[in-house]
């Protein structure tokens, strides 16, 4: 399996993106942003369609740009209108999916692309995606630890973070952009529909076994790595699409962590 170049690229991408998504996911889940990541991943379909329409052979760049645009649009509309965030996201999600499907259907020979992007395809990961994943992993991974205190405080309570001198607005926008970049690169592995799972399931599994933030971050990264690498290996062995297998692997880890958490609570001796 490791002899195949496409599998080497898939493993490398998973090695960089799975722990990164699991790290960002700790804050995504605590900030209730799962629907936001769904919105920007679905917006990618509009980016893919636009990329093909503009003549791009590999639509990664337009895909990233359109998703970032939608991410910023969510926050701009939230700040400048009376609309609820859920409403804004539902509107942009459905709008961008509708736009993407209509454009891809109209483009001759591109209808098959819809399924590849919806469910993920390891064959779609080229050298440029691996390089982008590596850069994102090192820059965003280290950036998250540099700004860990600010990110934690804005997650806990935004006004208190402001009083502590944290540039709340700038950090919020920065988080949204790096999250969007991570989502758009990871969706080549997992697909538009399933990409949010890597942001949600490993942190949720880690949460049930953790007593503090450090434990949750470390466990979430470990679970993400096992789900990503293990899922790709399993998908190759079983000849199944990578996205669903990665998701099911992480769900097995989640079920195991819930069981372990319940078990540890029932076996704790009651103090007199």
């Amino acid at each position, binding site marked *: 399996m490791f002899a195949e170049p496409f599998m080497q690229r898939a493993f490398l991408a998973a090695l960089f993106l799975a722990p990164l998504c699991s790290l960002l996911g700790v804050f995504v889940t605590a900030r209730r942003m799962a629907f936001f990541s769904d919105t920007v991943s679905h917006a990618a379909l509009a980016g893919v369609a636009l990329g093909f329409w503009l003549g791009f052979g590999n639509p990664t760049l337009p895909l990233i740009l359109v998703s970032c645009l939608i991410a910023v649009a969510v926050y701009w509309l939230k700040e400048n209108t009376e609309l609820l965030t859920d409403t804004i996201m539902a509107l942009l999600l459905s709008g961008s999916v509708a736009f993407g499907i209509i454009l891809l259907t109209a483009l001759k020979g591109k209808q098959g692309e819809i399924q590849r992007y919806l469910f993920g395809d390891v064959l779609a990961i080229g050298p440029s995606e691996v390089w982008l994943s590596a850069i994102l992993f090192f820059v965003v991974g280290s950036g998250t630890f540099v700004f860990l205190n600010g990110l934690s405080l804005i997650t806990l309570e935004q006004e208190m973070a402001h009083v502590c001198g944290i540039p709340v607005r700038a950090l919020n926008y920065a988080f949204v952009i790096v999250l969007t970049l991570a989502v758009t690169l990871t969706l080549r592995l997992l697909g538009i529909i399933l990409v949010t799972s890597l942001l949600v399931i490993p942190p949720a599994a880690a949460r049930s076994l953790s*007593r503090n933030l450090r434990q949750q971050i470390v466990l979430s990264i470990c679970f993400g790595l096992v789900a990503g690498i293990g899922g790709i290996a399993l998908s190759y062995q079983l000849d199944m699409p990578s996205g669903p297998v990665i998701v099911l692997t992480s769900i097995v880890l989640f079920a195991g962590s819930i069981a372990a958490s319940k078990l540890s609570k029932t076996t704790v001796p009651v103090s007199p």
Partner: protein
Amino acid sequence: MHLHPIANPGTPAVEVRNLHVTLGNHAVLRGVNMRVPPGELVALIGPNGSGKTTLLRSLLGLQKISSGEIRLFGERDIRAALPRIGYVPQRINLESSFILSVREFLAMRSRETRSWFWQSHTQIDSRLRESLTGLGVESLLDRPVAQLSGGQLQRVLIAFSLLRQPDLLLLDEPTAGVDTPGEQSFYELIAQIQVRHHLSVVLVSHDLSMVYRQASWVYALNGVICCEGPADQVMNAESLKEAYGIHVSTYHHHHGHDDHVR
């Protein structure tokens, strides 16, 4: 002896001149003037909706002001003054699903433990121990911040505020949601801290007996400053009537010494 704030030498921690704040179509603050000298505990009293929280939020740059001037430590740049300020809000909606522990939360605030992620619990505890003495939070270090009771959270927030050795502490009804014994011990703690660290404190409170005991100067607010002065002068029926309206009286709790407004 109580000093008039203007008589106290040194740059005031807070100076507010002719402050106007409008929320929607409602003018909440209409020309407020206030001065907090260094090392004094100044109380802000007034009925619900009188603009006390809006005034504190304006001092912190959390509330856009319509006109007027705010100077903190003599400077107009509120953001530059923030590192010198500790703030305990009236209500705080912490993200309940976030598992940040009290130890991690406090470690973020101290310069020695800012890189808490890479430090052991023992290292963090030994570095925080001195700053946390007497604040009653040592037993809470392993608990998630978002799952503390009202009284426990207020103590943790005070400890968090004090870790950077602030010059000014802003407390907005800090005992809201705390039971009466907890309220008393909390105010005793504030008084000790204020003296020990020579802090300027602005305290919003409905507990008039505490205001009477601790505050060196009292501002009664109801959109404007209705009256100001030493506690024993402001807290008479006439002044309170002006601030709170006509249906005002004080009453005593059974435990003897707490006056509250009703």
